[in-house]
């Protein structure tokens, strides 16, 4: 017994791969080529709808760490690329990305409101697509580009630029009340604007439908997204 045997390390690479967002496929190809595959069946991630399109990364054998022994429950060390920085962390097969971000890496901006994949409050971006981190196995995130709500000042990142524009709009339009759900709301909104820079009201609703707000502040959320979209279009973000 004792403290969790976490080998979380401080970021060892300040400069990350620049990720041009208009070339998702190129980046995916790069990331795929850089990962290791192993023959263990994994859990699928749950994708959130992002307006026009829903993208689900659904290759169960992708990115599994090589098992060095026969214990299927053994922890493995994986490298996670989060907000442009690399982190090495030891994960159990049952560790979700949410646990690792919060409990091992201290990135508590990603919340864990329901821990059941129901409320969207833990949403992060994986290769620009919104996922609920509480149901996304941590090992599957290895080799992919993860963006959390803390990733608002990553240099040369369109995701980061959109994220920060949304955060500033959220202040202006009062997008959150208790704000417990807002980091997740903002990540879903980032995915939405990434795939659809000028969404209609219906597209905003579709893109945000997986994120619950118990304060009922949906008017504030819609206005914030509209303002951010407008600011980004006008180049003022």
């Amino acid at each position: 017994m004792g403290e969790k045997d976490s080998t979380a390390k401080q970021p060892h690479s300040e400069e990350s791969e620049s990720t041009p967002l208009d070339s998702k496929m190129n980046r995916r190809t790069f990331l795929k080529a850089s990962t290791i595959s192993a023959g263990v069946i994994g859990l699928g991630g749950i994708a959130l709808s992002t307006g026009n399109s829903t993208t689900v990364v659904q290759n169960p054998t992708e990115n599994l760490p090589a098992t060095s022994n026969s214990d299927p429950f053994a922890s493995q060390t994986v490298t996670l690329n989060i907000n442009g920085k690399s982190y090495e962390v030891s994960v159990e097969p049952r560790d979700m990305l949410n646990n690792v971000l919060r409990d091992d890496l201290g990135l508590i901006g990603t919340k864990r409101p329901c821990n059941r994949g129901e409320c969207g409050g833990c949403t992060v971006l994986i290769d620009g697509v919104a996922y609920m981190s509480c149901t996304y196995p941590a090992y599957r995130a290895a080799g992919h580009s993860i963006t959390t709500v803390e990733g608002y000042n990553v240099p040369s990142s369109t995701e980061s630029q959109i994220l920060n524009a949304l955060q500033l709009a959220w202040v202006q339009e009062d997008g959150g009340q208790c704000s417990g759900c807002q980091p997740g709301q903002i990540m879903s909104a980032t995915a939405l604007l990434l795939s659809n820079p000028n969404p209609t009201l219906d597209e905003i609703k579709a893109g945000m439908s997986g994120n619950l707000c118990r304060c009922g502040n949906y008017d504030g959320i819609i206005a914030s997204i509209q303002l951010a979209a407008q600011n980004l279009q006008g180049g003022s973000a």
Partner: protein
Amino acid sequence: MSSKPQSSGLNNLDPNAKFNLVGNQAVTRRDIYAKVTGQRKYTPDIGPGDIGRSTMWYAGFLVAPHPHARVTSIDVSAAQAAGYVTLVESDLPVGALFGIGARAYPPLVSSEVLYPGQPVAAVAAPTANEVVDALNLIKVEYEQLPYVFDAQEALQASAPQLWPGGNVPGGGVGENGAVTSGTLTLNLGDVDTALANADVVYEDTFGTSIQQHFEIFPRGAVAYWSGGQLTVNASTQFAWAVQQQLAAYFAIPATDVRVSTSLGGYEDGGALGNGLGNKSTGEEYVLAAVLAQKIGAPVKFVHTRLTHARTTTNRWPLSATFRLGAMNDGTLVAIDGIYTANVGGRGGAQGADAVGDFYNAYNCPNMRFYSIPVTTDAYSNGAAMRSVGEEQGHFLMESAIDELAHKLNMDPVQFRLKNMRQAPNPVEPFANLPYTTIAQPQALQEAMQAFGWSNLWKGWGVPSSVNGTKRVGVGMCIQNASKGSPFPPSTSQVQVDPDGTVTVYIGLTDHGAGGNTTFPLIASEALGLTSMANVKLIQSDTMYTTNASVTAGSQSTHNSHSLLYAVEDLKNQWFPIVASKLNANANNLAFGNDTIYDTTNPSNSISFNDAAALLTSSIKGFGVWQIPFNVAYRSTGARFAQVEVDTETAVVHVISHTFALGLGRTIFYKGAIHQMMGGSVMGIGSAFFEELLNDPSQNVTVTPGFPSSGSWLNPNFHDYQIPTIYENPDSANVIPVENIDPTGPFGATGIGENCIIAADISFINALSNALGGYRFHKTPIRIEDVVEAIQWMNSNPNGASSTSSSTTS
């Protein structure tokens, strides 16, 4: 306390006053950037480093899946052998109770389980993952007992008796079935005679369901000991009550218990997450502290969705049978109401005020209310949830009132205008207390105009428009709700440092209502500041702040009135120093825009910061304020709604609503507007979705790995549905009515709870109008109920003029 509304000399009650910050639409929520960039820590976010430790243990509950059972054995040996720390009732001090007042209870089941989800054991483990492992290692055996979910059934002598004195808390059921005590009776005038002489008498029964707060952030606490001193960082709406309870539980001085809703330090407090009433107190606070003591390390206890939903207080189901009497001219002459409150296994004492004192809404000379609280095995504890009792009470009464107006074939707005309590000189009828203020009839008139009622209302049961299978109806209601009880005096401090920094210390929390902005805003305005840039806030921490009462009951803005007295006290310390610099009389000095100036010679002034620089060290003013006891302190408003129903799919959508609410004076504009909108959205859930369910089957066969029948069905966001962005109304027009309340700071009163009250019945009345005047009797209005209404409408083509719309019981 003085019977007259008190007022600080700094309290500007002029309705036309010009302010720098009060009501300023440009003021943004102070802590929102920190929250949306993930920097603000909520209780579940606290790690060992945040409290200066290197390790932290995690804790959770094992809860009973049965509604009524005897615990025959608990085996924790396997969990202990694996190195986990366990707690069962026998590990706790004998007779140690936890809870507020009459609702005190052992934090773990002592012998009998009284509702599904009652905590049986607690465990702690070094990682969150292992909490699940530890819980799986505990074996509990139960002897299941007959159970009762329904309040009317629980009143029968043959029903399982949950408490030694019977199922009516504080009372019992006599041999003839009559409830002997534990009830509430209010009587005014002569109801029986008035009903006998009335032109129209309408009798009907309405009911509501169990609702759960389902805040996005669950309840939680981090507890740790330093020597004999206990610190609890908790998501609590009332740090002082928790401090007192912990001190009593551990038999240590309250000064050795620190309860903080923040991590301390000069920042905008901590973050509670939405607090809708169930975050006043909870078992996790004491059990985290017991586990931390046992382990010798900090313990973080965060509820799962299941334990959050099933161990806490809930909005109790309330039903009422009314007899209403009116004259043909629309005069309301009698209200007779018998209320039954299902207050759950622990029997919340607050069930006694189950009437929701809705009798305030109508100026009716003959009224009689009788209410019975009944314990059942349905859920934990009927108690605080955003607008305690009022939310249910408004649905029941405004359903009946609307139907009475229908019977009279009178425009529902005209019926309210004729009969509602309104200015001038409104008085609470039973205790004969004068209102501090009332927004009626202004709120109703303004909302009616803004909504365009006269164009949209086509008569009872006649939709505003029909387009194929889509029918649009309009409806309305009024609201008149209590704003909590007079709690202990509210206190606060305001400090000025020589560098000009202002620090506001107030023992209230921000659970989404915007208090972190409202409180410093009020102090800043009193200090003449034009910006809050140099104003800091420390909220609700028993070490740094003093008791400012509970953050509940829409009282926080009112309770922050003490800030004006704190500024007054600060002034008395500061102005003599400034006066000698300005060669002026301290009594003539006043705060101007970022200045202090001589009122007899306004050009003789000094900037706020230069005046602060005259201080050799910080000075601090102390303020105390008490809500007057002998006034009626009410929230009043009116709602209009436009609802569409598709008769092919039975899908209902709120198209628009208009909501005028008296808030005294708008302090934090963006926050007030969004509370009014957001509370109304929550009301959509109350109207159409929200109901905490149990398996109604009495078959008690247990399938291994699955809860028994009688157990919970929907303790999660998937099955207990709260409004999503799709349910958001297409348009919302919220109108703050500035009915200056002389007891509030700058005339303001709080609105947190009042934003949900009556939202549901405004939508339901509009739905009724769309469906030929069909009267719905029980919330939530499920899709099956809508289907039934559509079938009724189709078989009653003259539904609008028919009087058979209510299934009178």
